[in-house]
């Protein structure tokens, strides 16, 4: 009898031994999905393949994208808009508090130009990560494909790749003209393996532009005319190529492309910009990040663009901790007749706020008390931006789900003006006409352009770009492109970060992170320059 029990026990044990080997094939459920899991779904639902393409755009608004690589959370890690904030902080148009609350303080004081800077690491990875996603799509859809949706995907990826290279080439080397043969950044072919990338020297500036133009040429040929808001279409590709040609001083092509890009789009009207705006995709936007309330960057609360840039948010660094202001000297040059004078708030002699675009009757209830906007918290410093509206134009909205502009038709009109004015086939007068037409119609009815030379005309357009595109990540590119100095002394920059730097100063180009150069020794670096000192001038 007992032998039977023993045998039962042993049999039970043996059964348990045999039963479980399939369990070794474990899979994640929900948090991530493996390549295999994804493929299975695509086989069942081929239409979901588009999800891979949309990663091109979701990566631009990804929260904490480099957390795992960096080994920690950085609260400026909220997508391309953070790169825009960094770039605008380097120059002279967007002072902010020099305080430990300012996540972009080391952009403002330019101490981010080291091989170990977390900001430098972020920028490099933000752009190259998106470029890698674009390469995946390009590698998947061959140029010879005849499937229209697939070609659309390929076109979007090509244009996005060009966008990344165009940013990179302007950040890691001086501008095209005069520096064509200097080293820019490595070019990553869509077929490149990891081993090849380990021995991938920086291409020259000219080579990178060649790549940009070739990508955009193909993209323009295969992209549809229109598409979903926030995704790249043929117009956006034209707009990107207009930027590239302007940089290369190919003025005729720049003009033509900007004309093509602008077709069908309408600038913001004076009425539309007579209140805080630029927070939702509209008729003026060719491209932008379209944000939903449930995106991680929004749910994070304050790790997003509006938390820094929108002074009306109910939840953010601005105002009070690190508001974004306009350079006081630049502001003083804006005529009172220009609607954009109201994009920044100032105070009069009695300490009252002057901000014609702001509805001062807005009141909010906070902690049981009613506060008028003018009394709101730390709205202390003048020149605070009121350009960017709160989400849904709702003052004190704690939901930071504003869309983020990446390319507006106004920029295309300004490119048309500049290109026409400087082209051999055009003239300053023709350029002035375009410029005056735009400004008079949409911003300042009494505007006249008084420029009498090419140089003055360049500055006139540049001035319009500085105020029109303020805070949209363009100001640094203009300083580099136009070889302008950076003047902060005598302005509202805090004295600890006030200095004057000459054009093409040695501190201007970014330093490639050592995470790249250590592994890819063929990639040489820019020389590390001394950080600017308070009060420094040249």
């Amino acid at each position: 009898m007992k032998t039977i029990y023993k045998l039962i026990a042993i049999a039970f044990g043996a059964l348990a031994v045999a039963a479980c080997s399939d369990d070794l094939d474990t899979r994640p459920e929900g948090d991530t999905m493996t390549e295999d899991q994804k493929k299975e779904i695509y086989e069942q639902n081929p239409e979901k393949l588009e999800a891979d393409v949309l990663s091109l755009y979701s990566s631009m608004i990804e929260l904490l994208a480099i957390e795992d690589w960096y080994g920690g959370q950085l609260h400026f890690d909220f997508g391309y808009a953070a790169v825009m904030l960094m770039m605008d902080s380097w120059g002279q148009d967007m002072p902010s508090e020099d305080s430990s609350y300012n996540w972009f303080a080391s952009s403002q004081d330019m101490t981010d130009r080291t091989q170990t800077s977390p900001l430098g690491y972020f920028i490099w990875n933000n752009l190259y990560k998106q470029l890698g996603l674009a390469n995946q799509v390009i590698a998947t859809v061959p140029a010879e494909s005849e499937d229209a949706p697939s070609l659309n995907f390929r076109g979007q990826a090509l244009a996005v790749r060009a966008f990344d290279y165009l940013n990179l080439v302007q950040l890691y080397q001086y501008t095209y003209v005069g520096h064509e043969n200097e080293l820019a950044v490595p070019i990553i072919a869509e077929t490149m393996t990891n081993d090849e990338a380990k021995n991938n020297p920086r291409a020259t500036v000219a080579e990178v532009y060649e790549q940009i133009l070739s990508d955009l040429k193909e993209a323009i040929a295969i992209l549809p005319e229109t598409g979903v808001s926030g995704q790249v279409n043929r117009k956006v590709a034209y707009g990107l190529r207009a930027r590239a040609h302007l940089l290369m001083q190919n003025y005729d092509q720049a003009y033509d492309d900007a004309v093509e890009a602008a077709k069908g789009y309408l600038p913001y009207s004076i009425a539309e910009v007579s209140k805080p705006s630029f927070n939702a995709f509209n008729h003026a936007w060719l491209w932008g990040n379209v944000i939903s309330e449930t995106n991680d960057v929004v749910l994070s609360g304050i790790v997003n663009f509006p938390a820094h840039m929108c002074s009306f948010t109910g939840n953010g660094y601005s105002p009070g901790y690190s508001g974004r202001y306009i350079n006081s000297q630049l502001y003083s040059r804006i005529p009172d007749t220009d609607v954009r004078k109201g994009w920044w708030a100032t105070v009069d002699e009695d300490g009252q706020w002057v901000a014609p675009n702001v509805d001062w009757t807005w009141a909010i209830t906070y902690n049981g008390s009613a506060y008028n906007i003018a009394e709101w918290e730390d709205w202390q410093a003048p020149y605070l931006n009121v350009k960017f509206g709160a989400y849904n134009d709702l003052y004190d909205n704690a939901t930071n789900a504003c869309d983020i502009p990446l390319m507006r038709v106004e920029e295309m009109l300004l490119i048309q003006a500049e290109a026409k004015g400087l082209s051999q086939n055009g003239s300053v007068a023709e350029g002035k006409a375009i410029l005056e037409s735009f400004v008079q119609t949409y911003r300042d009815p009494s505007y006249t352009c008084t420029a009498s030379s090419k140089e003055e005309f360049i500055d006139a357009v540049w001035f319009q770009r500085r105020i029109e595109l303020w805070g949209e990540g363009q100001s640094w590119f203009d300083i580099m492109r136009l070889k302008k100095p950076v003047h902060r002394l005598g302005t509202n920059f805090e004295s600890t970060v006030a200095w004057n730097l000459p054009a093409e100063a040695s501190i201007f180009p970014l330093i490639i992170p050592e995470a790249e150069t250590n592994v890819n020794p063929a990639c040489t670096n820019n020389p590390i320059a001394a950080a600017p000192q308070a009060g420094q001038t040249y």
Partner: protein
Amino acid sequence: MFVGAQNRQISGTVANPEGQPIVGATVVVDGTSAGTTTGSNGKFTLAAPADATLTVSFIGYQSQQIPVAGKTSLDVVLAEDTQAIDDVIVVAYGTTKKEAFTGSASVIKTDDIAKRQVSNVTNALSGVTSGVQVTSTNGQPGTDATVRIRGIGSFSASNKPLYVVDGVPYDGQISSINTADIESLTVLKDAAASAIYGARGANGVILITTKRGKSSEAVITVDAKWGSNSRAVPQYDVITDPGQYMELVGQSMSTYAQLLRGFTPEQAAQYIEKNVYTNSAGGVGYRVFDYPEGETLIGADGKLNPNATLGYVNGDYLFLPDNWYDELFDKGNLRQEYNVSISGNSDKINYYASLGYLDDSGIMSNSGFTRYSTRLKADYQAKKWLKFGANVSYSNVENNNPTNQTSSGSSANIFYLTGMIAPIYPLYIRNAEGSVAKDSHGYTMYDFGDTSTGMPYKRTFMSGSNPASMWELDKATYTYDDFSSRYYATVDIYKGLKFTYNLGVDLSAYRYQRLYNPYYGQYSKVGGVIYVANKRELALNQQQLLNYSGTFADKHNIDILVGHETYKWKRSYLQGGREKIFNPNVVELNNAISQQSNDSYTDNYFTEGYFAQVNYDFDGKYFISGSYRRDASSRFHKDHRWGDFGSVGASWILSKENFLSGAEWLDLLKIKASYGVQGNDNLLYQTGETNYYPYADQYTLSQLDGSFATALSYKGNKDITWETSHSINAGVEFSFWQGRLAGNVEYFNRRTSDMLYYMPSPNSIGYAYYPTNVGSVRNSGVEIDLNSTVFRTKNVTWTLNANLTYLKNKIIKLDESLGGEWIDGSRIYREGESMYQLYLRKYAGVNENGQSTWYLADGSATTEYAQADRFTTGDILPKVYGGFGTTLEFFGIDFSIAFAYQLGGKVYDNTYASLMHAGTAQTAGSNWHKDILRAWKIGDEAGSTDVPRLYTSDTNTNSMSDRFLISSNYLDITNITLGYTLPSSWTRKVHISKLRLYMAADNVALFTKRQGLDPRQSYTAAGSYRYAPIRTISGGINLTF
């Protein structure tokens, strides 16, 4: 019985000194495997030759060797022995006699654990045995300490040891185990000891054995202690005088104004006056001194205005600095613990049951740890051939765990804030007449350092925050349910052949509830935030073991184990959040209405292994053991899933040899050596989280304007497989003069190869790392454990113990493509050198202008931080660490003291660096270390000081450099215990067999190179921005019925 002398039946009893029978004591005929255990009433019978010697042993008692000498009846009394568990030690898949063990294991006795007042047993391991290093980054009660056995062997994979409770790997919270339930803790250090755990044993194994019944009469113990917690590591030596602080602020602004702007001292005084109450140019934002209008706070001489008085009324408010630390810490902080257990055994059943309650309020309110723990353990001899048992425990833990108490720079971190805030800022809002204001809800009004509460000032340091208010109104609670159970059945099949089935079920679940209040602070703007998360982890461990032991020809003893084990683990997580709270006291989602978010996911993990182990000894003198395990892990791709591990070991007890048998002074002399191979599959993400599918490319799904978007979030590598460690261990165990000097000396050499490693990838390819098996690292060293019973009489016992570990870490090989060197931020990894080496700029002192300078590669110095070259610091890992202690028992009084130490290493002192800032706009309002008083001043000679100038735009003055590396040597008094056991002749009259009163102090004192520095946090960096370690001083009573 095999061939041998004529056997005869011998019977007897085994009892303890009190005369109570010991049930389950082992009686073995020496030199054979023949033996038995005592049954109820402590009786045994067995057959043995008339000239045999019997060894009688039982856990907790000294073994005795009794010559049969022709007798047929033997009554044995075993003396209790604190060293007794040295005889039989718990090892992988069973127990063994210590002398027969060829591997390396340290046993930590129940006494050493019970003495410590820790809410998590890992915190009791510091200094108690060689080879074990303990670091702790968070003093929050209940938090796991980091335990490392014989160094760090992995780059990117986990270095955490495996915890095994009563034979089955344990997955619950370590803090859920009541330390009072622990009988012993065995640390398996080498491969011979732990290779049989295969995949999971590479970083050592900690075997926790819970208590069991020892005597046939039920024993009831009651232990109660009450005590108080305080902060064990003091604050850094910072400026505490508001006037002195303001003078330093003035010095920074004045130096800048005079040197850069060319101001005279008088102009500089005006410049300070103009800016000091702003938030720019180094100003602090607050005015807390009153002085006549028209005068300046700081004079042209740099001194505080002699007319200045502390306290300034501005409008409706009085501004008066508070000592934030004194206001917030060291109030109450009760710790109380109660444990009751009942245990006993008979010939068929052995049982242990316990109830425990622990309430540890930490050192800040709202950070308490409350645990209810229960355990029932029972073994039952159901049939002659069948024994089964279960060990079931359930713990309920409520852990109030304020967020961010370990993050540097977080305004919610009370430790960071109180350690860094300048001594000029008010904690409270005070009405003009001086009383602390209350708001309309009746809450104390705290100064948030901004205008949100109607104040006219903005604090330059951590504006918009006040942790005291957060503390009062925010909530963060984990409620854990840890159910841990072990079941087994053993069948005696035939003559020493046994089959055992083990099942372990661990269910660990928590509910996390967090509330940010709607009234004050950052989240008041959104009406408060509620966040609720649930996690459920289920681990199912099954073992099928076939065991044979037998003796051949009297002298050949063999023990064979064959087994199979599976481990299935599942974790499910669900969380949700909402904003805009209705009721500030209800931490549930339905109590809030906007910004709803939620997510959930599940992870799965599975391992399976087949294994075998053979132990053989000849005549109790020569021992050989071998083990083999074939293991598979779901973390690897199908094709690379299985790995082979194993070990061989041998030992020789010289003291049993004839040529030493005459040496009276020699109790034991044993030499041993082993070699083994183990695996590690536990690759972590760079953030330290476990990665369950590291071989696979992983994508995350996100939402883009209503459509799906999938993006690569993790680059996998399907070729990755086991990280393997190869360990050599050789040692000597000895005991001289009846234990006057005993111990062991061991050499170890653990080489980890095919390391699971995140290979840096050129970031330009679109990702920064991918996992691979590459390179190797060696940890080698020597361990010495010494114990001495200096003196032992009936009434007085004095013992000493000491241990020391010398550890050396060396990178043997990195990936070819790295060319022998990999720089990762401030760390550098070089072949042939320690993994623990920093790569820092080298401080070159102060130049003639008072500026910091750093070296360039050519030996010259520069003031440009970014341009300075970086240099390797050399190995910063402590060379030697360990502990020592002594116990003294005399006439019922017991006293013990234990120390832990480490020597020969360096650590980067983050807090000190922060406290040596230059007074810039980004650092103004944070405090200074008193060393700043030596800062260079205008007029100072070059070389007169090594502390650079205070200067409001010198942002890099205190940037990372070797200036802030400091010796990590420490001496730590971990525990002092003093007790008195009343004479049993008194207590027996009231039916109490033992009554002990005691006082215990834990974490008594820490001696380090700099006040405030705690080098026990990590091997590379330390900072006081973490929940500080707790000192606990308690009194208690221990009763045994």
